[in-house]
């Protein structure tokens, strides 16, 4: 820009001064944005690095294969086998039970809080949900052992109190606050004009919920459920305590099971650094990372697909 008049020059000077301040800030913000991606990549590399030496020696799909057998004898010096099938099945089974409990309860609670509760009780419910979310996972483990376990022995005919059902209940309870708060956010984001439109047509409150709010908030509700699943799959401490930690494929709800996460947590302490045992645990970690990333990516795609469908 040429400086023809003094006032022009002034403005140019001012705007370049603004540039001096803005540019670094912009760069910083951009760096923060990128750092999340870099961090994910770094975690992948890190886990991969510690698992890598063992990977060429693992039998993936054989009779003692990683994905195809339940033979987990990772500690043996000779003839170790690394079958994690039971843990994968256990992980998904316990997450499934958890979601069967958490999704209906979570959505119902979210609907109640956002549409039916009065303004005063709404606040109380929210505080309650936040406290529930803040309970440490190990405390949930205690609850599983001391309260839920005995109840299952008494009423569900379980021989062991810690089992698949117990883990599912605890994980469900733990996922509910997350689902409730995300679902409640997305219900609250539905414009009031939609509610009034339906009301003016004579719809009652229930019809408004399932014929207006659910379609309108669909992607947000879906995201809430997906993130609930993610939480249930990644959770460790409570599951370790609640499921009985037994390496077997469950045939009933009251069978003790184990999961990928619980196995890592319970064996990492004994595994010598750099040993094949430790490397095998990192291999499980790698698998977990892939699974959770896949769930989050699908959730994102589903939500984006929905957004696109609704915006054009």
């Amino acid at each position, binding site marked *: 820009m040429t400086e023809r008049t003094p006032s022009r020059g002034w403005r140019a000077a001012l705007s370049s001064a603004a540039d001096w301040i803005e540019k670094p800030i912009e760069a910083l913000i951009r760096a923060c944005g990128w750092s999340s991606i870099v961090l994910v990549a770094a975690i992948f590399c890190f886990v991969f690095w510690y698992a890598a030496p063992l990977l060429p020696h693992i039998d993936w799909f054989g009779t003692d294969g990683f994905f195809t057998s339940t033979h987990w004898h990772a500690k043996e010096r000779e003839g170790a086998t690394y079958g994690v099938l039971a843990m994968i099945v256990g992980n998904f089974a316990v997450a499934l039970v958890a979601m069967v409990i958490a999704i209906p309860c979570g959505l119902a609670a979210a609907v109640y809080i956002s549409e039916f509760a009065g303004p005063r009780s709404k606040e109380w419910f929210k505080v309650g949900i936040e406290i529930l979310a803040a309970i440490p996972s190990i405390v949930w483990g205690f609850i599983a052992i001391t309260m839920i376990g005995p109840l299952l022995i008494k009423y569900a005919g379980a021989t062991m109190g810690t089992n698949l059902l117990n883990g599912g209940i605890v994980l469900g309870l733990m996922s509910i606050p997350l689902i409730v708060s995300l679902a409640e956010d997305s219900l609250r984001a539905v414009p009031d*004009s939609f509610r009034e439109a339906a009301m*003016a047509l004579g719809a009652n409150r229930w019809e408004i919920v399932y014929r207006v709010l659910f379609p309108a908030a669909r992607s947000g509700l879906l995201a809430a459920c997906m993130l609930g699943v993610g939480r249930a799959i990644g959770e460790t401490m409570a599951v370790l305590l609640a499921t009985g930690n037994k390496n077997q494929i469950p045939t009933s709800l009251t069978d003790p099971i184990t999961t990928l996460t619980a196995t890592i947590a319970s064996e990492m302490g004994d595994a010598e650094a750099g040993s094949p045992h430790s490397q095998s645990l990192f291999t499980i970690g790698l698998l977990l990372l892939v699974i959770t990333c896949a769930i989050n990516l699908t959730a994102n795609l589903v939500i984006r697909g929905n957004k696109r469908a609704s915006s054009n």
Partner: protein
Amino acid sequence: MQDGVSIDIRDYSLWYGKFQALLGVSAQIKRGIITSLIGPSGCGKTTLLRSFNRINERYGNVTTQGHITILGKNILDSDVSVAALRKRVGMVFQRPNPLPISIYENVVFGMKSHLPQAERPRAVLDQAVESALREVSLWDALKDGLDRRATELTLEQQQKLCIARLLPLKPDIILMDEPCSALDASGIERIEELITELKRTFTIVMVTHNMAQARRASDECIFMLMGEIIEHTPTLDMFMNPQNSKTAAYIEGRYG
């Protein structure tokens, strides 16, 4: 109640918490014509209009007193079914608010609420959709995309759809709160034409800020000020020969 009166309001007061928004108003709104509610901002037009289908009640702090008789029944009585009331008294809002579902589902939304499953087979619904959309002259434009989302339409189409979705319920009264305020000039013109068209079948009560619109489109006008009805006369009389000095002042633009 004399014949030809559609909405009979007697000493009707409404409070939002401690604030009294309507101060014992009375009026008889005639059947089969368009009545405009005019007055400066905050005078209670919307509040009065939203009393006729009791949608005001969704704010928990509303209390009322007096009578509003529609079709021979005081709608403020506690035994009145609001769902049935809202079937007879439809409402069009200031901002077009089609539901975020398909065009088809928007039009049949009311039917699905009010009729049992057996009385609304697919053919009946299809027929209702077609005649409702024809009535608002949207059918030709939309007939090939009835499963598109209603929120994707232009604002003018959305507002027409919001009118169309009332029609399958065969209401007696249609309430409109500044139905054109979100539209451009040509949209306003076409909605006004449509409203005039609808007058043959329905009683219409319309809130408007636009003097010219009130004059063009309505048969009678109710002028409100600070929660009271100041004057209720045929539109021409109100604009040519206002009885009250406050009405005159408002019409001449002294209240804004």
